[in-house]
């Protein structure tokens, strides 16, 4: 116990001696200066402007997640009989020139979207509309973040958020595709 107290005291002592200031390895002011001069009308931060969209994206992902879970539940959680997952989500996305997504990513996205388009026909109209509406919300959010990036291309957080939005979309598309493969053709329902 005493030994433990001694250890704790030593740790406290070391923590208290850590410097509260560590200068960045390079002067960051020139970039900050350039960014604030570029926006002299002092616009509100883009993050605030589109923050509601993140909630919308989160809600859409959650809703589609519930939908996929419901399909799985209905299917008894069995693996697809004979079905194969035609596309997989790339492990990492990359930026191309001008923040255009890398070609691998675009190809995977286009493939999943085409495949989904056909499979969606197997769904009842209301369910299909719900899925499409929620995908549209995610895509709209990505478009908005992209537009904000156009005005503030150096904004690293916007870049991260754009990637996250695209990854959300791909994840949803891939999950939906897997779930659809478990569905019997519509004429069998």
């Amino acid at each position, binding site marked *: 116990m005493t030994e433990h107290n001694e250890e704790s005291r030593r740790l406290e002592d070391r923590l208290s001696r*850590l*410097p*509260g*200031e560590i*200068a960045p*390895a390079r002067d960051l002011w020139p970039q900050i200066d350039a960014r604030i001069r570029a926006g002299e009308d002092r616009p509100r931060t883009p993050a605030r402007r589109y923050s509601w969209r993140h909630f919308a994206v989160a809600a859409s992902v959650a809703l589609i997640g519930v939908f996929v879970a419901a399909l799985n539940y209905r299917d008894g959680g069995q693996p697809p009989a004979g079905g194969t997952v035609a596309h997989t989500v790339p492990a990492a996305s990359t930026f191309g020139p001008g923040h255009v997504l890398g070609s691998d990513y675009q190809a995977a996205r286009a493939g999943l979207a085409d495949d989904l388009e056909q499979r969606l026909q197997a769904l009842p109209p209301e369910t299909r509309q719900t899925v499409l509406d929620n995908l549209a919300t995610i895509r709209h959010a990505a478009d908005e973040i992209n537009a904000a990036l156009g005005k503030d291309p150096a904004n690293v957080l916007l870049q991260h958020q754009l990637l996250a939005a695209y990854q959300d979309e791909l994840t949803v598309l891939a999950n939906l595709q897997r779930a659809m493969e478990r569905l019997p053709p519509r004429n069998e329902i």
Partner: protein
Amino acid sequence: MKECADGDDHARVTAAIAGDTEAFEALYRRYAARIHALCLRMTGSRGAAEDCVQETFVRAWQNLDRFEGRSGFGTWLHRIAVNTVLVWQRSESRRPSGHLAAVDGESTDPWGADPHAVDAGLDLELERAIASLPEGARNVLVLHAVGGFSHEETAALLGVAIGTSKAQLHRARRLLEERLG
């Protein structure tokens, strides 16, 4: 948090609100190292820390007219910095691990090849142990035990309950004691 009271801040903020970028640069020069230390320890990445520092000051500039002076400018700036880092952490948690380091060409150890760190007499063993902590525990430790924020302030900054802040601090200390042997 112990605020470094300085009437100059008030004058500089007032001038900056009127569009004086030199006054804002003076504020940057005064607080950059402090904000950078916080961001570096919370992100565990030199590149991300620099991005967050930059973003913090740009956001501060954009929102200067919202600074009401109820707290010190430094405290207000820390709040923006913590929010910026939390947004970064959320974005990062959704990306494949190691992606940022690969993009930045940075090693996974932010203290790895920094000659300044040794010159500055940093406790590198402790800094590395802090960087290895789970995010929640690390955030609380950095704000409370290193940054000097109270549990109430830490909880408010991180958007967690005070009890969570205390529990995470306990966890952080326990893990550090284990790792530092």
